[in-house]
């Protein structure tokens, strides 16, 4: 990431304004950090290696209901009942 323009674009995307006076310093710091990150980018890793996003395997729940398995035919039947001229009628949200 060499250009100041890219830094400005990132700042716009992140809704963070970098003071003009600090722009060069931040650009230099970010460039060095990205260089450290490139150690990861340049790694040759197996395609099938599964990424790990969390170390929590407790199966916690944010909601009280749970997923139920239904037969495909039941899903179709449900859909047929909800279809109006080929469209699913959804509840009004606004």
């Amino acid at each position, binding site marked *: 990431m060499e250009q100041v323009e890219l830094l400005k674009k990132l700042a716009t995307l*992140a809704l963070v304004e970098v003071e003009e006076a600090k722009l060069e310093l931040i650009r230099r710091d970010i460039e060095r*950090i990205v260089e*450290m990150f490139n*150690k*990861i980018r340049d790694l040759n890793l197996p395609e099938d290696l599964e990424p790990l996003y969390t*170390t929590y395997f407790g199966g916690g729940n*944010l909601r009280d209901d749970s997923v139920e398995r239904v037969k495909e035919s039941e899903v179709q039947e449900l859909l047929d009942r909800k279809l109006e001229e080929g469209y699913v009628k959804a509840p009004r949200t606004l």
Partner: protein
Amino acid sequence: MHSPQCTDLATISIETLRARVEEDPDFLFKYIEEVYKVIERCEETIRAYITLRPMEDVIKEAEGILKRGSPGPLGGALVAVKDNISTKGIRTTCGSRMLENYVPPYSATVVKRIEAAGGIIIGKTNMDEFAMGSTTENSSFFPTRNPWDPERVPGGSSGGSAAAVAACEATVALGSDTGGSIRLPAAYTGTVGLKPTYGLVSRYGLVAYASSLDQIGPIGRRVGDVARVLSVIAGYDPRDSTSLKVEVPDYSLFVKDEPLRKYRAVVVEEMVGEGVDRGVVKVLEQVVNKLEGYDIEVEFRSMPVLEYSLPAYYIIAMAEASSNLARYDGLRYGIHLGTEGLLWTKAYTQVRKVGFGDEVKRRILLGTYVLSEGLYEGYYMKAAKVRRMIYDSFRKLFSEFDLALSPTAPAPPPKLGEVVTDPLKLYSLDINTVPINLAGLPAISVPGGVAGGLPVGVQLFGPPLSEGVLLNVARIIEVIVSCE
């Protein structure tokens, strides 16, 4: 280890405090007054607190505890709480201008549990802004100083919590640890700091930095105090979707001067290799030698993947931070600047420009960068794959060993201003602590000795939910060090 600020009375353990209060309830008031005297004498230099509660409020709460008939497991202990943990009615700033006037309408689960167990919140401690830093110099308000040498940093990001405990300005403290933020300040201040297994302690009420890595944990002057607080705060909480449904033992039962069983320990070669100060390595070697006298067998193993842990950690943490911190826009959370009438993007940007400090902005920018289209696969996805490799390597390691040892920090605490202006130097302080967070493992930092007149921490870590083993071995190290 007690810093020069401590007095005999201010340094007592929770166990002693509890016993003395049961004997004579007025002892609690004497103790509170003593701690406030220490604060009055030291706080001007140390600056551990962002918000200190008035002594009258604390005494009133102590009266309430005594009226219950039992002082509870914490016996009226004065608990300093890191300022990113929500406390109902007490300002919670996260060390940031963005939240400088934020007073939460609810308390974090850990705070509720502390209060129910007879602990009294004495104040909110200084920290690196939004926990982004390793020295507490990134606080928007002021830096905290190390009680052992005020020219040096106390570590971070829970530097205020560790300094408060080290200087006897509190009995114990709560910190949060995303990549070493409890253990590093514990190592630098000669205190004991424990990062629990991911999910063991509820994060409900903890202001999120990197949610897949954050954990709350205790800091104390003794292993016994840390075990006691952990027993109080650990356990399932339906309000945290990543809370583990496990039975929590009384961790105090593990705090024994002898091994509870035969342990096999390992030193990972990469954690004592290049870049680690010789004085720090020597302290670890001395500890290892003494442990062998306790029939704890210590072997060496290599884990080459650790070479990638620092960049993998910072990619993941910054990516999560850029998402978590999107809520600070002046509308949902954050300062109000009177931006009415401005285009929403301009209004949000203005608030974030004024509210966030440079390090936070840098991490948000980098998080946005690694998540952007075309770069996501090369950075974030690969970092998550490296995380898997680290996780699997530790699993393999702990199928053979009960625990591992390493220096907590690669060197003694730096002087104020020495590393904070160089982000790479700052990040490298976390080299031995971040792999543990990536794998969600428990770890404890315990004073292992002294190098150059400054405390050196030894890190013990183990497989998930091995806190009991770590506390047992940490206590043995405490005994070894106190004998010396």
